[in-house]
């Protein structure tokens, strides 16, 4: 009876497949850029993603060449030939412990290697600098708007960024889920109403990059790809920034005071404030952390949160300033916070509310 020892044909095939797969590896590693497979890369850490892509493609090329090569080789070499009796049988082997251990252990080792590499690159994504420019983008049906620090209103045409400056991009949505994708930067995160997702990166190449929505968001989803990320030199960026700041100077983020006189905060009743809160405020505010948005931000620790020492209007978080917001309202990046009249609050109510907010730690 025949044995299942690999014969000459097998080794020749293996050699051919090895050559093909080495060619595959060389192709993916030596190719000057991955451009034929991914769009030209425009920033850091996108380059890291490309590295991972190269690694995976070249190893996959090896694996796949062998699987397909053997399927074809076996199908041809071991086909039932005309000269064989029709009831000819193959070699009756059931298993081979060594072989089976090999094809369990080798992929396992590979999976461990791949995990280590992916985690390394994932870690690079996590430790991007947090000290650069902070931009906020809001997904709307069906366009993106952008907010910059210290300027009024929202930019709706394009997102301007200076080159080589780390960027922290906070994403949220005003209606349904969108997803913010800049293919050239290899960046993506969902824009989810009531949540803020953050991506950090550094654009390294001047240019215009398409921003695309990749989560279905209604009939206009297909056309939500018309805006661009404009990466400019620092002087060009600053010119744009100041120009824009001036043009929008008259747009105010705050609503003029309508209230009558100063409010005495003494003797505010936190329990009454709590009830009032659930009637007048909880439609827009959660009691969770700042990121927990409904319409306005979450209010846990408005007056005590170390990481948010300032209120949304830029003032220091003190009971008096909170009272001012309740009194005057405020329109900022998240939308419109109603003022005292709009909310139907008496001065006493405000005192109670502030007392209640003060209990949120």
């Amino acid at each position, binding site marked *: 009876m025949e044995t299942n020892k690999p014969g000459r044909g097998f080794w020749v095939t293996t050699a051919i497949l090895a050559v093909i797969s080495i060619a595959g590896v060389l192709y993916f590693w030596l190719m000057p850029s991955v451009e034929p497979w991914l769009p030209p890369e425009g920033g850091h850490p996108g380059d890291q993603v490309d590295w991972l892509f190269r690694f995976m493609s070249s190893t996959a090329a090896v694996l796949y060449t062998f699987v397909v090569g053997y399927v074809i080789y076996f199908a041809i070499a071991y086909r039932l030939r005309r000269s064989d009796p029709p009831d000819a049988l193959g070699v009756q082997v059931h298993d081979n412990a060594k072989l089976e251990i090999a094809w369990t252990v080798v992929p396992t080792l590979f999976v461990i290697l791949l995990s280590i590499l992916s985690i390394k690159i994932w870690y690079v994504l996590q430790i991007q600098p947090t000290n650069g420019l902070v931009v906020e983008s809001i997904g709307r049906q069906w366009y993106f708007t952008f907010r910059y620090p210290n300027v009024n209103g929202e930019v709706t045409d394009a997102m301007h960024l200076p080159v080589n400056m780390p960027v922290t991009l906070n994403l949220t949505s005003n209606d349904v889920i969108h997803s913010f994708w800049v293919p050239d930067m290899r960046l993506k995160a969902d824009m989810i109403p009531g949540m803020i997702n953050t991506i950090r990166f550094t654009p390294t190449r001047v240019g215009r990059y398409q921003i695309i929505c990749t989560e279905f968001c209604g009939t206009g989803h297909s056309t939500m790809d018309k805006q661009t990320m404009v990466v400019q030199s620092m002087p060009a960026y600053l010119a744009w920034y100041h120009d824009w700041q001036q043009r929008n100077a008259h747009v105010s983020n705050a609503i003029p005071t309508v209230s009558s006189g100063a409010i005495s905060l003494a003797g505010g009743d936190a329990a009454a404030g*709590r009830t009032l*809160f659930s*009637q007048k405020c909880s439609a827009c505010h959660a*009691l*969770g952390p700042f990121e927990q948005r409904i319409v306005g931000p979450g209010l846990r620790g408005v007056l005590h949160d170390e990481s948010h020492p300032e209120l949304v209007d830029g003032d220091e978080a003190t009971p008096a300033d909170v009272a001012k917001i309740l009194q005057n309202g405020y329109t900022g990046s998240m939308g419109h916070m109603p003022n005292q009249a709009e909310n139907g609050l008496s001065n006493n109510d405000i005192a109670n509310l502030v007392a209640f907010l003060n209990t949120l730690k």
Partner: protein
Amino acid sequence: MAVVSIPGGGEVDQLYADTRELRLQGFLLFLVSDVVLFSSFIFAYLYLRNSGQGWPPPGIARPPISLAALNSAILFGSGATMHYALENFKRGNFLRYSSLMLWTILLGILFLCGQGIEYTTLYFQDHVSWAGSGIFGASFFTLTGMHGFHVFCGICYLVVLLLQSVHGVYDKNKYFGLTAGTLYWHFVDVIWVVLFSIFYLI
């Protein structure tokens, strides 16, 4: 009687499964999928609860624990009566069995009444409703309502079982329905332990 000719059949029928065994297995698997159903909603509840609005959300009063505790006692009591009902049936003590069954059914109905009282006070006094009170109302009424519905189905099933046993459908050697009923009732009890702890205790 159904008959099939099988050469050397003796060994065959020994190895072949018994239909009661099949039904028991099927019934247990049904309970498993029911557990998954409850677990999914419990997961949803815990997920929403931990999403940071504080719990219970502002303006919502938790239902008082006292009524619920009384209700739990009633339900566990019915678990005990059910257990002894089956024991008595196995021992052939039909009268004790029937009265214990009746007690189980009665306690089940009491439990539902207790839940009814709780629901009406929550709704009319504290204005907590299913759709109008945010995620608290949604998860509380959905989960306890689902459980109440299970209790209701259990009561109906027990009534059927009792009638069947009165008509002599079951005997000392053949009481699969009663086993299933008992299992189901205990299952409903266990679910309640979980619901009670997540809604009233933590």
